[in-house]
């Protein structure tokens, strides 16, 4: 009994003593200067990413730009090198420096030619700034390695439609509808293709489908109104413009719809 008590007390004491001391630092696995420098660089890259992504998520693009510029300067291996350039491009475009963003995304794609998010953002930036040849070239490259991507298909369709390449735009929006028949905007854009090609009947079918899927789609309702007006169906056109005016979130579209409605 006495022996058991002593053993139990010793166990408790040892346990208590073990809790009083932190675990010793692991011994270094190398003393090689090059390996230690690489470890230090990896930790810096890690820290830059942590801070940079946190800054991006709170919309502090200047801070994000500084962190990711430092990460890029550290030249991390793939996929971190291309990811750092992608994040830096995101900061640059939010700071209004689209030229720099485009260059960074091109560098990211040079490092990793199948970096889909970089390809997507490159097309988006070129579309947004109206550089249609560059948007089309970027979209072609994106679609070549991601042929099933609906984002790639949509982006190239838009670039082609805006540039007047109706055959490519038609093929892309049809493929997009084939992949996702419930996507109303693809039907609307296909209707625009057909309108520009002078195929009003086909355009009407696509507009009807878009509005069936999304009855509050003001842009599609407005387009239907113009089509009806051209057909001489003034009463139907008036109803369409009235509904477009009520559904439109864009004040300019609402003003146009009201103006046309009031003429009928």
């Amino acid at each position: 009994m006495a022996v058991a008590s002593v053993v139990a007390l010793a166990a408790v004491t040892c346990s208590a003593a073990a809790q009083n001391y932190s675990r010793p630092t692991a011994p270094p696995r190398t003393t090689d200067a090059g390996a230690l420098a690489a470890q230090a660089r990896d930790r810096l890259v890690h820290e830059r990413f942590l801070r940079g992504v946190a800054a991006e998520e709170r919309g502090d693009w200047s801070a994000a730009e500084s962190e990711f510029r430092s990460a890029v300067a550290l030249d991390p291996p793939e996929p971190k090198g291309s990811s750092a350039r992608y994040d830096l491009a995101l900061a640059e475009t939010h700071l209004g420096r689209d030229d720099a963003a485009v260059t960074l995304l091109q560098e990211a794609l040079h490092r990793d030619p199948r970096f889909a998010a970089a390809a997507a953002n490159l097309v988006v930036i070129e579309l947004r700034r109206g550089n249609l040849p560059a948007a089309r070239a970027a979209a072609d490259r994106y679609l070549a390695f991601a042929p099933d991507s609906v984002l790639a298909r949509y982006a190239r369709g838009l670039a082609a439609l805006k540039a007047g390449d109706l055959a490519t735009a038609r093929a892309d929006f049809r493929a997009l509808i084939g992949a996702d028949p419930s996507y109303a905007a693809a039907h609307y854009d296909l209707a625009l293709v057909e309108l520009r090609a002078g195929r009003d009947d086909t355009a009407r079918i696509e507009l009807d489908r878009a509005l069936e899927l999304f009855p509050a789609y003001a842009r599609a309702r407005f387009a239907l109104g113009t089509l009806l007006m051209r057909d001489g169906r003034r009463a139907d056109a008036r109803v369409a413009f009235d509904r477009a005016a009520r559904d439109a979130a864009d004040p300019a579209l609402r003003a146009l719809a009201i103006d046309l409605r009031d003429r009928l």
Partner: protein
Amino acid sequence: MAAMREILRMAIAGVLALGACAGAAVGAELLLDDPAALVTSAPPALLGPITETGRTGWNCAPERAATAKTAAAAGLPHD
């Protein structure tokens, strides 16, 4: 002809940017003369940040969106 159509589209873009009532009337005339000048759906939104380890695993939201097979998964605009 193509140049003329481009000028019309630029004029409408200006009208839409201004959103003024007087401008709207001018834009309406242009739209009725040339329905092909109707604006397209919205461009896609920029994809978001990628973390240090994002692309080494499967759970990278921007990469998933960029290769998605449905409009909702890709985050395409509604209109």
